[in-house]
């Protein structure tokens, strides 16, 4: 035992070159975030004079942050609305659908399943143009509902896939016991499935939320009204301004990240796991 511990220790000490390499990568990787933070406290002249190092806190220009918040606050509110309702809608629909597939093998179940799974394989790029005209005909152009509904539809296949596997792993006895007690399917879903699936729903919710937060192509073609802009379009609009006050823009960028930072701090484990799983979706 002690010999083993010694050898581990000796190897542990030889790890330092790897630590150095990893730190080098991470420092470069985090450099953009560092720049964003420190430039957000400068005005353009302070930035040109001293681009690399943070200025003295006494000279920090908090006005950048006030300006950034005013600029981007409404966009954030819109995005939170879209992301929260889109995520909730996606999960409710997918949970219902997954229950259908997982509880029994219903007639036509296989065909219907294939209908969803095919969507995971198909490239969506050809859909964009007809989707635009469909939304126009449904008079959903220039509404946030367009983003919510299209997002919900696009996320169904992946969420159904994950949730079906999860529900199938729940012991059948639990469902049968609930049925004995006179629970219908909706009650079984609520009292058997939902209480057990907290962490998987959390993971899926984080993935869906992240996806919404990062979305910009659909909002860009759907939204026209400045009042309705989500973060994506708002940031693009900001980038199009002719004369740029980099400090204000960077402060706005930081503020745009705050909701994600909050999620990250509160559910780091779910976040890390969700990202590993989301990669399977691509």
């Amino acid at each position: 035992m002690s010999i083993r511990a010694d050898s581990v220790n000796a190897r542990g000490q030889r790890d330092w070159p790897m630590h150095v390499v990893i730190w080098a990568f991470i420092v470069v990787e985090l450099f953009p975030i560092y720049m964003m933070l420190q430039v957000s406290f400068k005005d353009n002249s302070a930035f040109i004079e001293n681009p690399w190092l943070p200025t003295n806190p006494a000279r920090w220009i908090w006005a950048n942050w006030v300006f950034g918040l005013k600029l981007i606050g409404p966009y954030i509110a819109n995005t939170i609305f879209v992301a929260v309702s889109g995520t909730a809608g996606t999960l409710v629909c997918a949970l219902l659908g997954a229950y259908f597939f997982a509880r029994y093998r219903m007639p036509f179940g296989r065909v219907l399943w294939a209908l969803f799974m095919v969507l995971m394989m198909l490239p969506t790029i050809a859909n964009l143009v007809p989707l635009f005209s469909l939304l126009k005909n449904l008079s959903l152009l220039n509404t946030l509902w367009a983003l919510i509904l299209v997002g919900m539809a696009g996320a169904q296949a992946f969420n159904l896939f994950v949730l079906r596997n999860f529900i199938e792993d729940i012991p059948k006895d639990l469902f049968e016991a609930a049925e004995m007690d006179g629970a219908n399917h909706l009650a079984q879903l609520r009292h058997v499935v939902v209480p057990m699936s907290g962490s998987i729903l959390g993971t899926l919710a984080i993935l869906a939320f992240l996806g919404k937060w990062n979305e910009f192509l659909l909002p860009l073609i759907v939204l026209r009204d400045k009042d309705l802009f989500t973060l994506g379009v708002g940031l693009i609009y900001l980038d199009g301004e002719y004369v740029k006050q980099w400090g204000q823009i960077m402060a706005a960028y930081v503020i745009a990240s705050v909701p994600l930072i909050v999620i990250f701090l509160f559910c780091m484990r779910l976040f890390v796991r969700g990202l590993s799983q989301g990669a399977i979706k691509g």
Partner: protein
Amino acid sequence: MSPILPPKQALRNWRLYFFLLPSLSLVAIFSYFPAASAIYHSFFDWQGGETKQFIGWQNFRRAFGDRVLWDSFLTVGFLILFNVFKMIPSIAMAVLIHRLKSDRWQYFYRVLLVVPMIVPHLVTLFIWKFFFDPNLGVLNRVLDATGAKRVLVWLDRHILGWNVFLGDAPIGWLSDPNLILPALFLWGFPWIGAVGVLIYLAGLQSIGQEVYEAAELDGVGPFGKFFYIELPLILTQVRLSLVLLIIGTLQGYGLMLLLLGDAGGPGGRGMVPGLWMYNRAFIAGEFGYACALGMILFVFILGLTTLNNRYVRVDK
């Protein structure tokens, strides 16, 4: 797989079909209908309005003679090569982290790697765009400060002959046609994708400490360990991310749209097929032609996906 429910029982549970209704209608309206409509409209001369005219294969014939489209396929080919190369740091990072003895450090580094994900993609994109800015941009300042610019100027004068790196002018990364591809290559340095590292780490998890010790007794060096122990175990993940990356790069155009604009930047050197489709539809108003372009791209990607399903097995 349990057998299909007998009809009698299924009939008793008919209400279950209602459970599927929300998902099914969403997908039917917002996924299947647009897809069908794209196929249909690719045979029409259509400006997006009520009037349209059937023109048969003419959109496709036009696409086959479309220089911009074929150039854009060439560009996207380069981008795919770049992106494949950019997988290397993530793999290296995962292997390095996995080889650390201390679990605590491993977890700490994993968290640090995820930190960039809390910044929205768009923000990262715009920060990089800011880095590329010729006058204020960080990249040019780094090159100046490290003397790397002098090397580039020398290379340009004596070997490359592009006439883009001049001693007395800032480098216009996104404004010079010749520099667009190099700039897209540099984009995102050091190219570590948190998601990639995390899946590779998950794949590496199954290698126990004994395996390393045994390898060490046999005198296997660090590179040997990588090729004989680590790579085989993450090969599934590497292949999977390779396929997803190729498909993603082929479809993707968001980066190009925001970095270079809807015409693909100076000289259209950053034009990719997806961006050309977007451009035709929303800038030129040629919706029918854009649908045909989408179909061509779709068939292209579908072919790749089929090939991949045949030759790349993915274990779930």
